């Protein structure tokens, strides 16, 4: 694999005693490329997204963007990074100033980064609104005069204004209804092609990742428990948690509805993670070994055979299929 755009290695983030992210590694090639971070509330996916953008200082590990250590950036290099990496939040209301007109909100990053004089920035803002499928005439409106889906488009236009190479999309559609969601996802798909974007798509819903993300990492309690090419990971999950997450996606077609794996209970307390595999208290497959021995993230087989045949994928430059479960082979074979 050529030099990745983003490389996260052994990232750790603590909030006091809470280990929100605990030894997490990711690689994201240059765009167009999508990497999904999937997990429940509290899995550390949002914290990871923020640490990548240096909005939170990690307790350990490294984030590299274009090979440079993001935590050590200063001055001009830091400003260039702030421009190259942008975020779209779950709640567009929280990221748009209610007293600022839409057009000004989109133009603001251009002015802050001194990329355009005021008049030109206004012109660019109108173009950007058009690019995300909004009437440029909306530039004069205030956020509350727009629908949730429109506001999220504004947030995307604003993030795009400084021509980033990396976008962190933090649950960009979970506050929207399914129709608005479908339109936003379509927009992301178009933009990734047109702008050759690389992005982290943070979500709890596997349903939205398959079209937009080549790769997926499943997070649980601040760790990656499984990762790999999205189609393969969703088609044949190797971790019981992935199986449960996948089966939780509601399906219209009763034929497609698989026997549901209901996960009872909540993810454990991140101040005091359970010994052994952190998933074992909720895992239907847990055995004695899971209670004592921490499973390491290891390679598992490709589409066919068991472990050991994944070398071909590696040499093709594709990401490995990795899983942290003692019983992954049984999950794959069952």
């Amino acid at each position, binding site marked *: 694999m050529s030099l990745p755009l983003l490389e996260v290695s052994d990232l750790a983030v603590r909030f006091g005693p809470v280990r929100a992210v605990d030894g997490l590694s990711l690689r994201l090639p240059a765009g167009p490329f999508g990497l999904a971070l999937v997990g429940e509330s509290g899995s550390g996916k949002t914290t990871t997204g923020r640490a990548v953008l240096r909005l939170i200082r990690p307790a350990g590990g490294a984030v590299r963007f274009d090979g440079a250590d993001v935590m050590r950036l200063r001055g001009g290099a830091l400003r260039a990074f702030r421009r190259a990496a942008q975020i779209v939040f779950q709640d567009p209301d929280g990221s748009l100033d209610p007293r600022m007109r839409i057009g000004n909100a989109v133009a603001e990053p251009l002015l802050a980064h001194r990329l355009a004089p005021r008049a030109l920035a206004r012109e660019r803002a109108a173009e950007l609104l058009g690019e995300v499928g909004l009437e440029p005439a909306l530039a004069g409106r205030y956020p509350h005069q727009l629908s949730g889906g429109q506001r999220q488009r504004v947030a995307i236009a604003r993030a795009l204004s400084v021509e980033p190479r990396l976008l962190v999309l933090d649950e960009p559609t979970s506050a929207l*209804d*399914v*129709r608005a969601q479908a339109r936003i996802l379509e927009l992301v798909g178009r933009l990734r092609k047109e702008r050759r974007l690389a992005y982290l798509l943070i979500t709890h*819903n596997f349903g939205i990742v*398959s079209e937009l993300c080549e790769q997926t990492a499943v997070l649980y309690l601040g760790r990656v428990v499984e990762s790999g090419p999205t189609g393969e990971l969703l088609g044949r999950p190797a971790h019981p948690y992935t199986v449960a997450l996948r089966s939780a996606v509601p399906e219209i077609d*009763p034929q497609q509805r698989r*026997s549901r794996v209901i*996960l009872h209970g*909540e993810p454990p307390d991140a101040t005091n993670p359970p010994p052994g595999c952190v998933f074992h208290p909720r895992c239907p497959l847990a055995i004695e070994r899971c209670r004592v021995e921490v499973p390491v993230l290891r390679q598992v087989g490709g589409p066919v055979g068991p472990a050991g045949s994944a070398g071909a994928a590696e040499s093709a430059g594709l990401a490995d299929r990795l899983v942290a479960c003692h019983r992954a082979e049984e999950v794959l*074979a069952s």
Partner: protein
Amino acid sequence: MSLDIGPLRVRFGDRPGVVNIENLTIADGEIVGLAGESGSGKSMTTLAVLGLARTVGATVEGSIRLNGRELVGLPERDMRQVRGRRIAAIFQSPAMAFNPVFRVGSVASRALRLHGLTGTEAADRMAIGMRQMLLSADLLRRYPGQLSGGQLQRVAIALAIALRAQVLLADEPTSALDVTVQAEVLDLLRGLRATEGMSVLFISHDLAVVAELCDRVAVMRAGVIVEQGEAAQVLAAPTDPYTSDLLAAVPALPPALPGLPPALPGLPPAPPGGLQ
């Protein structure tokens, strides 16, 4: 208990109605889905049934009958006996249903005592409701902020059970939850119909969720029901283009590759380690 809605019109001032329902019936023990996108009038329908449309400045005309008894125009004092006691409601944000400065159990107890129960009866009934929602009664001693969204939504449902409400209005109760928690809550709602014979009006923008839970579905657009019928039939062969649009918007998983286990082997039916 059955709930018959319609003809029902809800409007703000002189503007055209935001809800214009000809007929929507939830039979005894039936789960009916009301689907549509944001702004289609689903939540205004909930408020109208609860007799709360006035509080947001809307006018309600027409008829809503609970087991044949007319609710529109019922004096507030009588409506208070219906609301909660007969018809309970849960909303998208369960946190809004609980005062953050009181323990969850004290909010529940107060609601039950307002409906005439003694403190002991209230505690007993709440314990039963919590058990049905697979929650430990210990959670009642906590403050709302100490519970997850899924737990809080289940406490709200436990309260509806404790009130022995016969109709549950569920207005996007799982839209703010993780898919895993959503799956669990849907499962519990299904069980509730089985054990309590509760009738449920389930409001959602997501037809996949409706497909999983509901016997019948009504699709609403701009306040009007454009299509209704057996859920399986409407979703398999929609007749209204709007229903097709909503269906097309549901994100789809790629089909499972051969060899994906239908379920995990040896899945225990009960939560590991008992109640949370």
